[in-house]
């Protein structure tokens, strides 16, 4: 026959099991939620000032709309337009690996999101538009070699968007370590 003490320990063990299972599920869920938060941009700080983000001060250096025959002679078919965005970042501290998993995208305020063209296509377009100039790196490549403190880097990304969205476009930038925090600037492009 089990003693009272043994019986008490047995019930305590059973009761603690439910607490441990709940704790394990809670910790696992918290880890998953935390991991998910580092992949999304929900805390977007809008411009148009020059915000401090990821160890640098950011501003839009240039935004071009190509495809309607005004910026260049290039006319793209139908609704297709090419948007080229240059962002200038002046480092306020040592960045190191702080720009890892850098993402730049365009949004139109209705939930639609355009991602940049890949590096090869982007460089080909740069050479087509200006054969003499060296193509600028995008955010991902620049993150491997960020500017030193008080130095400035310019990054360039290209996007294919419909003409109907051009007026409402804003650019959003975020880095893996700081997501869901991100910064955004209206592009102020004119399609008329």
């Amino acid at each position: 026959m089990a003693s009272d003490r043994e019986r008490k320990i047995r019930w305590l063990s059973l009761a603690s099991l439910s607490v441990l299972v709940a704790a394990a599920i809670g910790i696992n869920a918290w880890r998953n939620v935390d991991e998910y938060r580092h992949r999304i941009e929900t805390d977007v700080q809008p411009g148009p000032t020059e915000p401090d983000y990821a160890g640098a001060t950011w501003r839009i250096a240039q935004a071009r709309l190509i495809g309607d025959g005004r910026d260049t002679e290039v006319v793209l078919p139908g609704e297709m337009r090419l948007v080229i965005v240059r962002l200038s970042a002046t480092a306020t501290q040592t960045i190191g690996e702080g720009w890892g998993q850098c993402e730049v995208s365009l949004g139109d305020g209705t939930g639609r999101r355009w991602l940049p063209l890949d590096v090869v296509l982007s460089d080909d377009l740069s050479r087509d538009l200006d054969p003499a100039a060296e193509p600028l790196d995008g955010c991902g490549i620049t993150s491997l070699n960020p500017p030193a403190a008080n130095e400035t880097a310019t990054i360039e990304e290209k996007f294919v968007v419909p003409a109907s969205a051009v007026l409402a476009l804003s650019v959003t930038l975020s880095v893996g370590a700081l997501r869901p925090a991100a910064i955004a600037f209206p592009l102020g492009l004119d399609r008329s």
Partner: protein
Amino acid sequence: MGHLLRIFALGMTALVLAMLQTTTPPYAMLTGPIKTAGPQSERVTSATFAIDVATVKQARVLAYDQFGKAVELDTSGMWVVVSAKLEGFRQTMSVRAATLIGASGRRYRQSQRAGGAPDVLASKIVQPGLPTTGLFFFEIPEDELSKMTLVVSEQYDPQLQDEISVSLTPLPGSPQDRLDIGPDGI
């Protein structure tokens, strides 16, 4: 009496556990694709993208130009070429995964042999607001042609992502011997 109660409690516990186990959906189902289905005659729309299947053609030989050189591809079965239009709604995406389910229920992924053909949809980027047209290429045995379903998604074996199935209209007549793929498709 105490023994009987313990045996009853044990039996009930085993029964409840067995019920829980048999009614628990497998992990693959819980995290599987979000499915949408429709016929070829309609535009089939999911939350993230839509597909319009325009035409389906079958041929014994595919012919196209690649880098100025004529390419001819034959097959021990039949080439099935699906011409379709894709539209993305939320975010820049690609629809890399296309599978044809034949009459037997066997699943055939896109043929990599025709990867150099013009207008391959799987290698295109779909931008929101800019519908894209192109082709999917399959090689399947001739006896699978009587009933076919096209299944497309961003990637193969999608998890919690949209997957669209389109029941293809049975192909009329006999297959053509040769199908020429031009720069504008079929």
